């Protein structure tokens, strides 16, 4: 087998782009699971809603990419507030399975709604003019837009990690993950904190959707294709681990890219083989804490 080094390198770079999207999505998923204990199967449709929001803002209101990058997470976050208050809040005292089933049902419903409203076909979303073009890395031409996704995604992930690990608000979130009843007895309004955390988690998914819109076509199933991988990221990284999600997301993107170059037929399964190996060797995940 003789695989050109350029092909391997270029697939790995493209893998990092996917990895950053996985990291953004799994970050939101990990925050939601860590604090709310909800396995948010609707995370993929919030990603899709971010992309459709960007498309709708452009085609209906003439608001371009940069505006969408700000507005779509706010809109989807507001929808997240409604979902948490009217649906998810009522499941906190029940087994995690109920949350998974509810959010799975919600995902199927929203996906159907997108299918009816926008049709089954992929809709195009252009790269913003300021990010068109490519840079020559020697072994490949890297589109500016993909480089932007990597830089912005990493800044977003690190910023979120810093906010959770190094700020007073993050300390409240971490404490509420440990013992929500006691945190509330200290005078902190935990129900509002849970609502805002869910909204922030799904807003992150929406950011991922806006970033992905010019790379993927915008279609109803775009969330489904990534959410399975993102769940694998969260499991490998360690359920609820923020840093685990970021590092594992990028790592799995790289692994997937490498597999596309070396053994394309395994590229879609390599992540799950890796997940099985990690779970056998370290059931709590790479960054997970002992229960």
């Amino acid at each position: 087998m003789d695989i050109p080094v350029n092909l391997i390198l270029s697939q790995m770079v493209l893998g990092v782009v996917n990895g950053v999207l996985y990291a953004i999505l799994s970050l939101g998923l990990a925050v939601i699971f860590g604090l709310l204990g909800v396995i948010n199967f609707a995370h993929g449709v919030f990603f899709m809603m971010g992309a459709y929001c960007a498309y709708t803002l452009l085609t209906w209101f003439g608001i371009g990419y940069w505006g969408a990058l700000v507005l779509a997470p706010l809109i989807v976050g507001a929808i997240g507030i409604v979902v948490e208050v009217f649906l998810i809040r009522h499941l906190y005292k029940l087994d995690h399975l109920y949350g998974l089933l509810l959010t799975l049902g919600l995902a199927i419903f929203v996906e159907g709604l997108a299918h009816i409203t926008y049709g089954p076909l992929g809709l195009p979303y252009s790269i913003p003019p300021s990010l068109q073009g490519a840079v020559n890395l020697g072994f490949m031409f890297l589109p500016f837009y993909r480089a932007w996704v990597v830089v912005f995604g990493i800044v977003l992930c690190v910023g979120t990690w810093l906010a959770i690990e190094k700020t007073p608000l993050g300390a409240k979130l971490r404490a509420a993950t440990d013992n929500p009843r006691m945190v509330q007895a200290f005078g902190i309004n935990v129900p509002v904190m849970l609502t805002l955390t869910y909204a922030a988690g799904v807003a992150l998914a929406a950011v991922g959707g806006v970033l992905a819109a010019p790379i993927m076509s915008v279609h109803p199933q775009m969330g489904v294709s990534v959410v399975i991988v993102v769940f694998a990221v969260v499991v490998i990284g360690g359920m609820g681990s923020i840093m685990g999600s970021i590092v594992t997301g990028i790592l799995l993107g790289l692994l997937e890219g490498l597999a596309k170059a070396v053994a394309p037929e395994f590229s879609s399964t390599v992540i799950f083989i890796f997940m099985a190996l990690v779970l056998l060797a370290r059931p709590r995940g790479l960054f997970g804490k002992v229960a």
Partner: protein
Amino acid sequence: MLELANVNAWYGESHVLHGIGMQIPRGQCVALLGRNGAGKTTTLRAIMGLMPRVEGDISLDGAPIAKLRSDLIARKGIALCPEDRAIFPSLTVTENLFLPPVIAKPAMTIEHIYDLFPNLKERGASRGTSLSGGEQQMLAIARILRTGANVLLLDEPTEGLAPVIVQQIARTIREIKQRGLTVLLVEQNARFVEELADIHYLIENGAIVDRMEAAEFSKSIAKVNKLLGV
């Protein structure tokens, strides 16, 4: 005044508090003594809004608080220092200390709190759970002092601690009293509360069985110890 009148509480089907009545006047230290399982911690949890089902009247300065959420009760100036200390393992000492919001001007400044418990400053960057049991207790007390709460519920603050630490906690409670704060002190150690409390309630099987002023309590230590099984 914090007042409980005919307070009943349940865990599921289990009726655990039976008509508790207590008065905790402003600026005084009131002790609640009883054996393990007598209902001391449950009484504090009922005041703090942490019980699944409570009936009866709990009021602070005449305003009912029994039906309020625990965060709203805390914002009225009542703070709980729980038996397990509730030091959050994922937070540093400083993060634990600064976790609860400040609800009023504290009776002690943070500098004074650090003077009282210098280890909390020196080990501020360490994980809260890496502290010794005594230091964790100091942290738990310091944490509620910083909030400006003026009614402190202390749940067995001396449990499992070395005598030298117990003395330090006694000094701290005396200082808290001198600053005019109200303390409800749950204990099993009659000798410890004898010097500190103005009023003593005895609890058995979820019901108050006796109430004594300080002078009477000192004369009845033997009887109290018998009730406590000491």
